């Protein structure tokens, strides 16, 4: 910072000297017509002094401000860099934090996925078991119905066979039974009734 200030001071002094030399040259070129008068030299001196005073005044007025400006600017940049570093650190910290959170969330998601998978497997097993039970029940019902229908058909066949047999027996008896057979049958029956009572 000091180096910068020194450079600016040297620059200002050099500028003032160059200005004086330039003014001297101007006056020197004007004197070729008859030389400088005392009044001119005095005016020149006075103006030079004014310039010096002006330069000093400017220096007195602006040096501190300029110095302050550049020092403040440097500080600002430094602060900005420090802030940037801090923000970077914080950002990294937050990045790590969010990374951890993301990892944690990923783990949780994995856990949830595993849980859902497990539930799905359990549900699948349950559905398969239920379906198996239903299928078994349907099978049993169907078997029971088959048995029932079979028994029914068997009973109907038997009934028809019995009816036909009885009808045939009736026809045979109608054709073959005689009055003598009938009397013998009646006598036998009456004997049975008497013996039973």
């Amino acid at each position, binding site marked *: 910072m000091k180096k910068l200030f020194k450079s600016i001071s040297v620059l200002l002094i050099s500028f003032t000297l160059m200005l004086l030399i330039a003014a001297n040259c101007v006056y020197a070129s004007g004197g070729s017509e008859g030389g400088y008068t005392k009044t001119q030299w005095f005016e020149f001196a006075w103006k030079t002094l004014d310039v010096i005073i002006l330069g000093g005044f400017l220096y007195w007025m602006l040096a501190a401000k300029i110095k302050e400006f550049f020092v403040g600017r440097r500080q600002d940049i430094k602060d900005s860099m420090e802030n940037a570093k801090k923000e970077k650190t914080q950002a990294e910290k937050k990045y790590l934090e969010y990374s951890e959170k993301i990892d944690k969330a990923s783990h949780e998601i994995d856990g949830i996925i595993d849980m859902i998978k497990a539930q799905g497997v359990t549900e699948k097993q349950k559905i398969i078991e239920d379906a198996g039970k239903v299928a078994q029940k349907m099978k049993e019902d169907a078997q029971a119905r088959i048995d029932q229908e079979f028994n029914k058909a*068997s*009973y109907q066949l*038997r*009934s028809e066979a*019995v*009816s036909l*047999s*009885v009808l045939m*027996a*009736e026809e045979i*008896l*109608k054709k073959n*039974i005689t*009055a003598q*057979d*009938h*009397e013998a*049958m*009646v*006598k036998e*029956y*009456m*004997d*049975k*009734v*008497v013996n039973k*009572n």
Partner: protein
Amino acid sequence: MISNISKRYARAFFEIATEGKQIEKYYSELNQFALIITQNKDLGNFLANPVFDQDSKKGVVVNIIGKLKLSVLTVNFLKLLVDKKRIDVLSDIVFFYRQLMDESLKKVRVSLKTAFPLSSEMQTYITSSLEKVTGRKVEVSVEKDPGLLGGIVIGVGDTLYDGSIKNQLNNMRNLLGEAR
């Protein structure tokens, strides 16, 4: 189902008949008149209809009685039934009177259904067999029923003795049908 009123009339008439020792005669007369009413539907409806006055009914009954030549006691009993508006239950009275009479005479009526006509010897045999079974005198009414195929069906009161071939075939049908 015989009403108590019918039973009361029957019992009263039976007691009078018992005193006169003419139970069967009065039964025969009552039954004769009851058969006329039963066989003649219009006459039955006329006597049972409350629209016709008692004198008309009594007049008709007296006319019929006059042709039947019934005893005085029976005639009076029938007139009483007309007066008391009980002539329509005469068949029930006769039925219960017969029960009382059978009870008194220790007689039982038997209905006999047969597939073939029975010889008189067989009928006598059946009667004597039933008298052994019931311990009473048996009066058999025979009815022919070819539907029995063979054998007989005897009804003694509420008891039924079924010795018909039809019944045996039915039993066979049931046995074979139920056996599995």
